[in-house]
């Protein structure tokens, strides 16, 4: 193990330990969270940030690594979420059977949905995913299949197992969300390092060339998309547990676009970058409204107050600026420095490669 790898694993381990002991920290963090770190409100905000991070990682697997830009990732997350709640509420199934059944259905939906959408390539694929997700969003907004319409559905009384229920057990829910991130990250990180993962990245760079080499591009894409969407459904299950139910906000176009935004903000093709972007996005989205009603903002003149009170305005502007000036996302701040250090170590290949790439363009 090289020194930098040891540093990286050590850092990740340390971060994990810190995140794991957060529920024991009885400190307030100056209005950043709704209360002290270990209060149920704060832990729920943190858990939602972790779920968003996991979902962004799954999207990065197909978007950042395989080059499949999905504008309908919320479909699979929303499906997992709704299926869990609706099936668990069925007295004959309960939570213990409802969750596995929901996951099995999610795999089927992920396989079918992507098999259809992948018949289109490039932008057509994005549009198809978007439209299918919108179909689902409309269906749940109108309350088809017992999805409860605009208010959504909640777990019936006594459905959730005791350790995950109630305000006092919010820390268990938080740990569940943390475990989700770890599982999703490890699965994705291992996958992209396998032979299959390398083929995915080849497809991202040039589908035609990969096909000519002899790989079945459609099958590899379908595998990537199905795995990614199934993992997203798993995020949906945990989302349902964190929120105690399902509501249409997780299924709509807005959430799909938010996921794309998280990945681009953090850095496409870097798993931890996607997670970073998601954590930032979700934090701003959940906390900016309370910040904008604070005196700092309400004291400002109206033309400044209106944009600052809209989280989407600030996030959208940040998103545009990132696209214009920092195409690699926030992660590129770190990776660029890492690459520079690497290029110092062995001057030849690292410096020549980018030059060649520039010339080819």
């Amino acid at each position, binding site marked *: 193990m090289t020194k930098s790898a040891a540093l990286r694993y050590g850092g990740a381990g340390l971060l994990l330990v810190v995140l794991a002991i957060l529920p024991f920290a009885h400190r307030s963090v100056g209005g950043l969270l709704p209360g002290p770190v270990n209060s149920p409100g704060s832990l729920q905000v943190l858990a939602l940030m972790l779920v968003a991070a996991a979902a962004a990682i799954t999207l990065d697997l197909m978007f950042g690594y395989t080059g499949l830009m999905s504008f309908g990732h919320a479909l699979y997350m929303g499906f997992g979420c709704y299926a869990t709640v609706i099936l668990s509420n069925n007295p004959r199934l309960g939570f213990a059977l409802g969750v596995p059944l929901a996951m099995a259905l999610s795999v089927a939906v992920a396989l079918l949905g992507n098999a259809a959408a992948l018949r289109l390539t490039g932008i057509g694929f994005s549009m198809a995913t978007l439209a299918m997700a919108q179909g689902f969003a409309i269906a749940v907004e109108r309350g088809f299949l017992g999805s409860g319409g605009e208010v959504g559905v909640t777990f019936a009384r006594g459905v959730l197992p005791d350790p995950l229920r109630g305000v006092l057990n919010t820390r268990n829910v938080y740990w569940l969300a943390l475990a989700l991130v770890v599982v999703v990250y490890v699965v994705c990180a291992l996958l992209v390092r396998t032979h299959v993962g390398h083929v995915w990245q080849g497809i991202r760079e040039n589908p035609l060339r990969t096909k000519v080499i002899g790989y079945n591009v459609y099958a590899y894409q379908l595998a990537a998309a199905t795995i990614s969407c199934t993992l997203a459904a798993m995020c949906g299950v945990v989302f349902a547990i964190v929120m105690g139910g399902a509501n249409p906000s997780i299924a709509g176009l807005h959430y799909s*676009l938010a996921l794309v935004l998280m990945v681009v903000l953090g850095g496409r093709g870097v798993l931890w970058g996607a997670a970073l972007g998601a954590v930032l996005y979700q934090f701003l989205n959940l906390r900016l409204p309370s910040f904008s009603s604070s005196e700092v903002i309400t004291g400002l003149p109206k033309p400044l107050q209106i944009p600052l009170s809209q989280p989407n305005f600030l996030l959208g502007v940040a998103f*545009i600026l990132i696209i214009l000036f920092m195409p690699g996302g926030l992660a590129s701040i770190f990776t660029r420095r890492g690459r520079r250090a690497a290029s110092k170590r062995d001057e030849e290949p690292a410096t020549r490669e980018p030059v060649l790439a520039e010339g080819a363009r």
Partner: protein
Amino acid sequence: MSTFLLITISGLGLGSLYFVLAAGLSVIFGLMRVLSFAHGAFLSASGFASWIVLRSFETPSTPRLLLALAVSVLTGGVVALLAEVLLIRPLKGKELEQLLATVGLGMVLVALMAGIWGPDEHLIPRPDWLTSTTSIAGAPISNSRLLLIGLAAVVLVGIQLILARTRYGLVIRAGVENSAMVSALGINVKRTFTVVFVAGGMLAGLGGGLAGTYYGGISPFLGDGMLIFSFIVLIIGGLGSINGALIASVVLGVSQSMANYYVLNGIGDVLVVGLLVATLLVRPQGLLGQKERLV
């Protein structure tokens, strides 16, 4: 029978709205390979522009309505011009980034509108003749539907004429085939890009003004809802094909209205997605689309 006719013409009106928005997007995509997510926000912004012109009148006169439509077309054009110059042009050649930039722009505009005017719908007053009905074969058809269908027909003929008869149309058609070749021949494709993007914005603006008369109100989120259906129209019709978009918008508008009326309110919107999936499975390139060339 008269109900059937009423629903059909209502559906045609809805299809006309989709077409007005989709036509602009289709030409933009054909030439620039950019699918704009911001045009929904352009539509909403233009709807608000027409609302500002009309709001102080109880029943505005017809010239006032025409003024409102002109203002909304202008608004759509100006916003699109700014977007093209400030966002799309600097990202030339990077299609994915251009698309993402329009996503961001759409978000920013919708958030701004929601911040300024609130998220709720604002009623747009209409002239008397627009809310009254004309009897066609015994069916009372709302005049706003007829206006929509008429204007969509004008847009269709206009686009076809411009594409077929003018120099710009020639450049656009050539650019759709091979824009690198066109610029190699010394034609300013950059300017054509701007013109086409702005024209698409103006069509979205017209859509905004018309959507106000169709729904009788405007909200910041109206445009995004319409945009999704326009995307579906584009895919079913074939990306980049105006005639395909025409057929698809008529089929979609009518079948959506029929299903919503005869089966269950809301099911029509889901049916549209079903049609999309069916199209993808049977004919992925869309009705009149061309198979994507690999090289």
